[in-house]
């Protein structure tokens, strides 16, 4: 029998396998990406270098927010050998149980990965990766630990940076940073677990401008996770870049001076440079040292305390407290009345106390005197004329028409809406329109008599202190304003575009004169309500307000600008439960103005009286 033909079976078999393998390899290497991606996953690593956050300067070039070096104690489980837990716990000042608990916590914190194919759940924790065992150690703490780390292989230090506030001021305005949550990591690829993000205030609003650019390095790693070389000779690497510094319009000197004046009081101060709209100071009292909320350790220790404090130091009053404005609202009412032509600068109304209560003063013969005396009946008359213009048939339709017109004017003053300042967490306040009252009383069920308390800034009307300061700025500018903002420049760029656009009110320039004259009288003439705010060499124009408070002592409010002929500063001071506006808010404003314009205060007694005063302040000490 001849078996020679069988050589072809064998040959065919060899060639078949050869072709099969060639096709398979063609598929694996050229067609299918799966294995290439898998190789990247296995052998390459992305290292991110987070730059320090951008720093912040005040208008005089003082660094008010900087960064400080901290240290993390890192651990790599695979490198840990014969750990003497007792000695280690002693070194870091923990108990042995705490150390064990921390190990478990790290593993748990990494979460798990669900494999859809096998249906198995595996931990993301890897023994060969670095994890922070202790975070945010200060230089003193690490210098106590670091020299002994050679006895504990697998542990080493790593430098990191966190915020530092040398002035301990402006906490509520600057805001604070905290670790990103899972949603933030998922929605923005910039962030990795453990990164910090601006949580409130300017830090939140300018998050993108402050966070800078991360440096990314791709390296080829070994199975033991050691770096071997840079990937593709660093072709895809980017260097880390710290963000350009922010320069604020804020003047740190009066900011911290304002905080000192407001100590042991509740309320706020907002100061604006009228010509630019830059916020010079924004004091929220009570406040806290911003360094208390730097880093995870501090936040977990101090945040609950601050959040539970009955004086609410975390509450950014200038942005979020919505108060009835009280008498300062009369300024805007005068302007609208004149613009609408329902009064002239020379209109006089008797002080008819049967309409509404008033203090004793001569009847106002013109707008300036009305402002000076802050005459309640006068403004009843004015606002009635604005609301009830007699242009529509029937009192209700007429009131609806008038109120909506009035509402439009108010809107042009930036009231009844958020001001779009560059800080997160502003409230809109409230300026009612016809729809608002329709909801309460029903359509055509209300007229001026129903809503008359709005004429003296009570009732439904609500403004934030930022709104109030902006009114002062508008009057100082005679009819226009820039949206109040903090940031003067970002690196070499100026402020954002919306802060470079002049906004005009619906009231013409000529009507501001009488109101300003009235405000001058308020401070500088006998019979004015704020003589305590008077300064010898600076002509301040102001207006007091006393806001009725059904829950307790009235609030004291004062808005002003100065100097009269060349306004450099517009200010609003609001002191809760302090009674008459002229007594507390007025002097505080004058001290702020003097400090800002002259850098020193002449009346030390006044200053001392204010600083020492404790007004309606709930002591946390028992």
């Amino acid at each position, binding site marked *: 029998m001849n078996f020679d033909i069988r050589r072809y*079976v064998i040959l065919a078999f060899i060639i078949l396998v050869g072709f099969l393998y*060639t096709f*398979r390899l063609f598929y694996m290497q*050229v067609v299918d990406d799966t294995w290439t991606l898998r*190789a990247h996953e296995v052998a390459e690593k992305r290292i991110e270098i987070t730059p320090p956050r951008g720093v912040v300067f005040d208008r005089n070039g003082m660094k008010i927010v900087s960064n400080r070096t901290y240290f993390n104690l890192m651990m790599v489980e695979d490198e840990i050998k014969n750990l003497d837990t007792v000695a280690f716990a002693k070194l870091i000042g923990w108990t042995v149980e705490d150390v064990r608990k921390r190990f478990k916590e790290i593993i748990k914190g990494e979460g798990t990965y669900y494999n859809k194919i096998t249906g198995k759940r595996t931990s993301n924790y890897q023994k060969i990766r670095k994890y922070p065992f202790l975070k945010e150690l200060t230089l003193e703490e690490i210098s106590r630990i670091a020299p002994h780390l050679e006895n504990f292989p697998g542990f080493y230090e790593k430098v990191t940076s966190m915020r530092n506030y040398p002035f301990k001021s402006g906490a509520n305005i600057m805001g604070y940073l905290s670790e990103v949550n899972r949603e933030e990591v998922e929605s923005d690829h910039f962030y990795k677990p453990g990164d910090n993000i601006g949580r409130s205030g300017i830090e939140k609003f300018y998050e993108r401008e402050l966070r800078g650019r991360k440096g990314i390095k791709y390296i080829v790693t070994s199975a033991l996770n050691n770096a071997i070389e840079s990937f593709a000779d660093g072709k895809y690497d980017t260097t880390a870049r710290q963000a350009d510094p922010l320069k604020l319009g804020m003047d740190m000197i009066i900011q911290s001076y304002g905080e000192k004046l407001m100590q042991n009081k509740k309320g706020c101060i907002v100061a604006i440079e009228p010509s630019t709209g830059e916020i010079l100071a924004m004091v929220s009292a009570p406040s806290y040292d911003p360094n208390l909320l730097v880093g995870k350790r501090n936040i977990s220790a101090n945040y609950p305390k601050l959040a539970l404090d009955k004086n609410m130091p975390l509450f950014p009053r200038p942005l979020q407290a919505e108060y009835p404005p009280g008498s300062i609202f009369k300024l805007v009412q005068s302007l609208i009345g004149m613009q609408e032509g329902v009064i002239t600068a020379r209109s006089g109304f008797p002080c008819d106390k049967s309409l509404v209560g008033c203090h004793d003063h001569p009847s106002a013969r013109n707008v300036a005197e009305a402002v000076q005396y802050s005459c309640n009946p006068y403004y009843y008359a004015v606002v009635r004329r604005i609301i009830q213009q007699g242009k529509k048939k029937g009192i209700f339709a007429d009131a609806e028409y008038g109120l909506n017109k009035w509402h439009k004017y108010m809107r042009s003053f930036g009231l009844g809406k958020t001001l779009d300042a560059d800080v997160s967490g502003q409230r809109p306040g409230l300026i009612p329109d016809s729809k608002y009252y329709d909801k309460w009383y029903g359509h055509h069920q209300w007229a001026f008599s129903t809503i008359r308390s709005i004429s003296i800034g009570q009732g439904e009307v609500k403004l934030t202190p930022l709104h109030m300061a902006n009114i002062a700025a508008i009057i100082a500018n005679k009819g226009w304003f820039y949206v109040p903002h903090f940031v003067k420049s970002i690196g070499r760029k100026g402020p954002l575009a919306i802060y470079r656009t002049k906004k005009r009110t619906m009231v013409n320039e000529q009507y501001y004169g009488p109101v300003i004259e009235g405000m001058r009288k308020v401070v500088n003439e006998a019979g004015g309500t704020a003589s305590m705010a008077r300064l010898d060499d600076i002509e301040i124009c102001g207006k007091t307000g006393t806001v009725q408070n059904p829950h307790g002592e009235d609030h004291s409010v004062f808005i002003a600008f100065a100097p009269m002929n060349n306004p450099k500063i517009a200010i609003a001071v609001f002191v809760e439960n302090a009674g008459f506006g002229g007594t507390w808010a007025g002097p505080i404003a004058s001290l702020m103005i003097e400090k800002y314009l002259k850098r020193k205060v002449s009346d030390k007694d006044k200053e001392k009286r204010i600083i020492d005063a404790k007004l309606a302040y709930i002591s946390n000490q028992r």
Partner: protein
Amino acid sequence: MRKEESLISHLDWPLFISFILMLIAGMTTLYSVAYNDLHPSIFDVSMMYGKQLIWIVVSLFLGLLVFLIDSDIYRRFAFPIYGFTLFLLVVVLFMPAVHGARAWIGIGSMGIQPAEFAKISTALLLAKYISSISVKQQNISSVLTASAILLVPMALILLQPDAGTFVVFTSFLFVMYREGLTFDPIILSFVNRIPGVRFKETWVGSHFIPILFVMIFISVITLLLNSVQLDFFFLPFPVSGSIGVISTILIFSVLSILFLQRFSAKRERSRGTVIIILGFVFTSGLSFIVDHGFNSLAPHQKDRIELFLGLREDPNGKDYNRNRAMAAVGSGGLLGKGYNKASVSSVESNHVPESETDFIFCPFAEEWGFVGITFLFGLYLFMLIRIILIAERQRSIFNRVYAYCVGMILFYHFAINIGMNIGFAPVIGIPLPFFSYGGSSMMSFCMMMFILLKLDSQRKDVLR
């Protein structure tokens, strides 16, 4: 003097050159994969490449000896050589285990693996035995004797244990098949006991080896497609995997019958048709049984089979090696990452374990890409086909059987080793000839090749 002239003029240069090319390619790859910045010299004997170079030099020296010695001694001393390696295979079982296997005689890296040399001695004895019996003498006892020559070293190797080399020994079955030494006589002795049956030959028995591989192939394909719904362009609805396999076989069967009717001699036609129909029934039945058998397995058994076939992934567990190896191979792309640029499979990065020995195909594939692999496969195929051509031109049966043994051993090593890297073969540790780091395998493959070249150069001297 005359002898040396005849050696040079009678040497099979194509095979010799492809062999040398393979050695160069292997050495180059090893240098790249094990490259160390601190010891850049290829002659640095503290590094793997320095050592491998020594092994190659030693192998070439042994080759020179083989060329100088008369080839008759392999035939004459086949049995003593075989006996000596069996002795070594027994001795090795009393040696300390390295990585869980008692495969080494000697200390550390200077040891040798007798199993590598057992392949040559078994090939020689098998050649001697087969050449000693005539075709007519092929009966149960000759089949059993030939099988025994294989089974004794196989059993000893399994005791080490070394599953890889054990599997390689089954390559001799191909050689026996080529020589007509099949299990047919055994099957006939059973079949012919049935009254009235008087077969001279069963087709299944004599083609047992190819049929076995067809069975394995069909089973694996069926299992791979077990949970897949196939969309055929000519069918409006998807079909299950086994149906797809069966219908593919059906199409091929019908095509072969048509081909047969058209082109073959009349005498062959009916017989061929019957064989194809029976083949179809058998293969589709097998596919059906495998499919249903698999579905009725317990989940953990299924799991194990699926892992083995690569249907299920366990990239950081049982499947670690293969997963990393396939990642390295696949990431090579069309043109590769360039010489000395294997980022996944270099020894330094160590993602692919054993990338200098069993998985050395990885760095080659990673660095040279599909283009490089095409060249390598071309070289392999050329070498194997050349060996078979050489085998078929021998006048002596001893030479032919030995040449087939060398060809099939190399084929097994290539196919299984590369198969490991691309998910086609289970991960059993066998070296890639001429590439993998290691003295025993290098010397064994070189000796094998030199003996073949020597035998071939003297093929005209005598008729054995």
